[in-house]
């Protein structure tokens, strides 16, 4: 149980990476952008991969009537997510410590993992909702109003995960360093739960 508890203490600490590294990344490449434009999604706001990428993405998107990318104050998520992550890290470490002192069972480890997974899925759902709004809520006076072959207006929702060809742009959306660190951290807590379960079974 000691080893499992140590893992349970370390795992949540990986989430601290989210305060430094982006959770997600969307890259936009096109023939005239051999160095692609890039958007890093941090838990507290959006940042360009290169300094002026946000300005340049907004500049291009105004042709098709997309709204400018939100600033931190434009979305409640950028204020709330850092608090939720902070709370989950503290909670996870506390659970690990109590496990180390044999005050609680491994089930708490799994409980933290499940809670974090639920929050993660909710976060993804929320993120996708924003992507839908960003890609479909277009200015009716857009300079270019494009339609699909079936006559419906063309929309520009970036993919949640993976690659999509959008007009002249190749758009690729992938978890970034912070996201991967979170994934590793969560896997460590899952392992901690598993190890705790094994140990309990032997006893």
């Amino acid at each position, binding site marked *: 149980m000691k080893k499992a508890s140590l893992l349970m203490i370390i795992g949540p600490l990986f989430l601290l990476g989210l305060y430094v590294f982006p959770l997600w990344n969307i890259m936009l490449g096109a023939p005239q952008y051999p*160095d692609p434009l890039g958007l890093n999604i941090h838990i507290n706001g959006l940042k360009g991969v290169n*300094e*002026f990428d946000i300005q340049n993405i907004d*500049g291009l998107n105004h*042709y098709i009537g997309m709204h400018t990318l939100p600033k931190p104050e434009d979305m409640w998520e950028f204020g709330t997510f850092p608090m939720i992550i902070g709370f989950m890290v503290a909670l996870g470490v506390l659970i690990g410590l109590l496990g180390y002192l044999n005050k609680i069972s491994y089930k708490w480890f799994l409980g933290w993992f499940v809670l974090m997974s639920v929050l993660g899925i909710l976060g993804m759902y929320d993120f996708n909702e924003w992507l839908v709004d960003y890609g479909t809520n277009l200015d009716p006076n857009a300079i270019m109003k494009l339609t699909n072959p079936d006559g419906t207006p063309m929309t520009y929702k970036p993919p949640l995960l993976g690659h999509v060809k959008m007009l002249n742009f190749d758009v690729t959306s992938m978890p970034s360093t912070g996201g991967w660190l979170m994934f590793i951290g969560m896997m460590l807590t899952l392992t901690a739960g598993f190890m705790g379960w094994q140990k309990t079974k032997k006893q």
Partner: protein
Amino acid sequence: MKINNHLIVTMGAALMLVSCGQQNQSSNGALSSSAAEKVYVAPGEQDEFYAFLSGGYSGNLTVYGLPSGRMFKEIPVFSQFPTSGYGYSEETKPMLNTSHGFVPWDDAHHPDISQTNGELDGRWIFINGNNTPRIARINLSTFETEEIIEVPNSAGNHSSSFITENTEYVVAGTRFSVPIPQRDMPINEYKSNFKGSLSFISVDPEHGHMDLKFQLLMPGFNYDLSHPGRGKSHGWFFFTTYNTEEAHTLQEVNASQNDKDFIAAVNWKKIEEYVNNGGGTKMPANYAHNLYDEGTHTATTTMNKEVLTVDPLKVPGAVYFLPTPKSPHGCDVDPTGQYIIGNGKLSADLTVHSFDKMIAAIEGEKFDGEAYGIPILKFEDVLAGQVKSGGLGPLHTEFDGNGNAYTTFFISSEVVKWKLGTWEVIDRKPTYYSVGHLMIPGGNSRKPFGKYVVAMNKITKDRYLPTGPEMEHSAQIYDISGDKMELIYDFPTHGEPHYAAGIPAEILAPKSQKIYRLDENKHPYAVKTPTDAKVVRDGNEVHIYMSTIRSHFTPDNIEGVKVGDKVYFHITNHEQDFDVPHGFAMIGQNTSELLVMPGQTKTSVWEPKQVGVWPFYCTDFCSALHQEMQGYVRVSPANSNIALKWSLGE
């Protein structure tokens, strides 16, 4: 039957190829396909070297790639350039100020890249204006001319602009000797009255700013070309001279009488010490110093009123003359600094002086008379060797860093490769036609990159499709990586390239600037956000603070301008994206367009003469809606009282 015919034709062609190869006697067979492979830079690939070719009478500097011979850019230096508005915009007009007023043109000759410890460092490139003596400094991260200093007491600024091993100085020598100071006197009293000035312009190691530190006033010869000592000869500078006859007319004949002219060896370290200790004479002068500030995007002119002159006789041991046959032209120093090569342009041979022997002769005081008090060393005492080339009209020499030298021969139209030390000729290849300078990247530094040599020719004739009486000059690229030179490419050049300077792309490309930062723009008329755009009247001057971004001007409707006004369009490009300039042109404007780079502010003046509603537009195809990037200015009669009004999207 048909197949047989094909076979015969194919075999015939193969035979012809074989016999051609034999005729050429080329060491590696020199099939044209291998030359093509050597110069072929596939689409999307980049060149190995930058080559900066002077534009000669274009007044500018052109940038090419090696080995492809593709032209990348023309950098405006001494000439107005309507393409970008250089010399037309209010910000850049001061760059072309001189003591003679605004001079919109010059004859640009010899570019030289800055060095540290004798190796190319790629910070700046310098070039001389030959006609109205000036030296320019170009920043090699923006590829823009940043500074031009006029050289007083000079005329025909030809033995310029060559830099010392640590870019301590950029040196400018006069080709014409003139009365110093200038005065009204009979031309035929030239002899012993005219003087030749050699100017040492210090370069600030931090920001590159130039300052005319001292001028050496030499006898009235013609100082033709020069190069710095390097390595062991660092601290010396060598100048070829002709017209030691001091002829003032029909120089073609009268300046070609002496069997030997001189290479002047100048110990500038010694003179620098003399000057630093308070030596030299301050002389009244009047010369322009034009400096472009990247922060304000604006150039300013300062007129300097004084120059420090040095009489060479007052600094013992500072100047010696090395006799050199036949009106030497090129003056080149090998990478070790040991050999000083004087190319006697009216002879068949090259004269190579030895630095060590020169020092020994000076220490042994083996003089062969003097000229105006300057000791002449004995020819035999300083001679290292002579290259008996069999060519005619040697002009310039470059080095490959492997102990070989390459000399151009104007009259016999060829490049000759020879070995330093043994003086034997290794190879010779024709040029097309009448070659002047040649260039090996770093070929005049301690560390040449001896892979290609570019020969720059004066005569083109039949090399390309004919374009009437006037044609661009031609250049040839030779692969010099083997024992024998191999002609691999031939390309036309812009203007008349005299000298050139090359540098590996890996030194320059990574630091090439992509944009100017808008948040660092300190132009007094810049607008940082479109909401700051405005129109301000000050008497009959109207200042329009305008911003641009794809794809509109802010403002794009302006009213209240009157006939007789002087309208200043101050345009700030708000793009912060690589390669998105916006242009600006106003109908009927008596000036050029502007090309405004991202983050930059430029100003164009318009003096409307007719009532009406006049359009302006973006001249650079900036986006899919470039055609819509346009606007109107309403011009009312001079006596009307229409209020100033400006808007966008109303």
